[in-house]
């Protein structure tokens, strides 16, 4: 059932989820620095929003070392993908067919 999601609806988190959902596969992970540049956020700001999404079980954060440098990668979980799809369905329900624009929401949302 389409369910409006307050955690996802916050504008920065909504964009983070939209960016992660637009990656080519469920297995692909976005680099922390890439997301930070993409949305012009500070480390602290992005970190706080990611923590909120991780706490809800919507994303998975992987901390690793590449060439001896600490790196952080983020991707969505199955629960996150479902919640995002539900949120979009809820938004579309509000519009109730009055909006005829096509919305590209990343990968196909079931």
């Amino acid at each position, binding site marked *: 059932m389409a369910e409006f999601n307050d955690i996802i609806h916050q504008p920065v988190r909504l964009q983070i989820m939209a960016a992660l959902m637009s990656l080519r596969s469920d297995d692909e992970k976005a680099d922390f620095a890439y997301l930070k*540049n993409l949305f012009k956020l500070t480390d602290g700001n992005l970190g706080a929003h990611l923590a909120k999404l991780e706490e809800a079980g919507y994303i998975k954060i992987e901390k690793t070392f590449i060439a001896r440098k600490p790196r952080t990668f983020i991707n969505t979980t199955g629960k996150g993908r479902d919640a995002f799809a539900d949120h979009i369905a809820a938004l579309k329900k509000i519009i*109730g067919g009055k909006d005829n624009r096509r919305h590209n929401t990343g990968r196909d949302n079931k």
Partner: protein
Amino acid sequence: MNLDNRQAADTLELISKTASQTKKSIAAKYSSPHIILWGCIAIAGYLLTYFYLSWVRVIWITLGFLGWLGMFLISSYQKRKGFPTKNSQYILLWWQPIASWTAFYAFIFISLYMFKPRSGIVINAYIILVIMLAYINLGIWNSEIFMIGLGIVISAGTLIGVYWIPVSFYCFWMALTAGGMLVTTGIYLHLKYR
């Protein structure tokens, strides 16, 4: 939270824009070094051809090999670095660049042998047009408008070079059109999505 129609539509629009921006920026980050590489190869190839015409085959086969080697090294570096994204499922197998390189050159050699183009310029234009067709198709399949645009502009430049540019200026024209366009587009994409 209560949203009205307008707010819900704006939110969907924001999602749509973010998804599109992310796809474009990832594609640009991955492809811009490759585009710059091939632009430099094209400029070097045409200028060397102009000055050392008798070495034309050696020049282009060597530069083609260096280009593919460069692409492999850039791809390996991008994968190792994991920026902007990391995909643990995607592993470039050792035979893939070799098979791709072999298929490309086999196609070019077989078709040139079959159709027997009348001059070096036509052979060169044919190869460029085949590569640009691949660019346009890649652009269509991946919804990358800059690839489609690049393919069309360089194809048009190549045809202008064949039909309207004096033979003695052809190499300079192509260095400017093909090489220059590739380098400019690569730098533009790199700066736009850095």
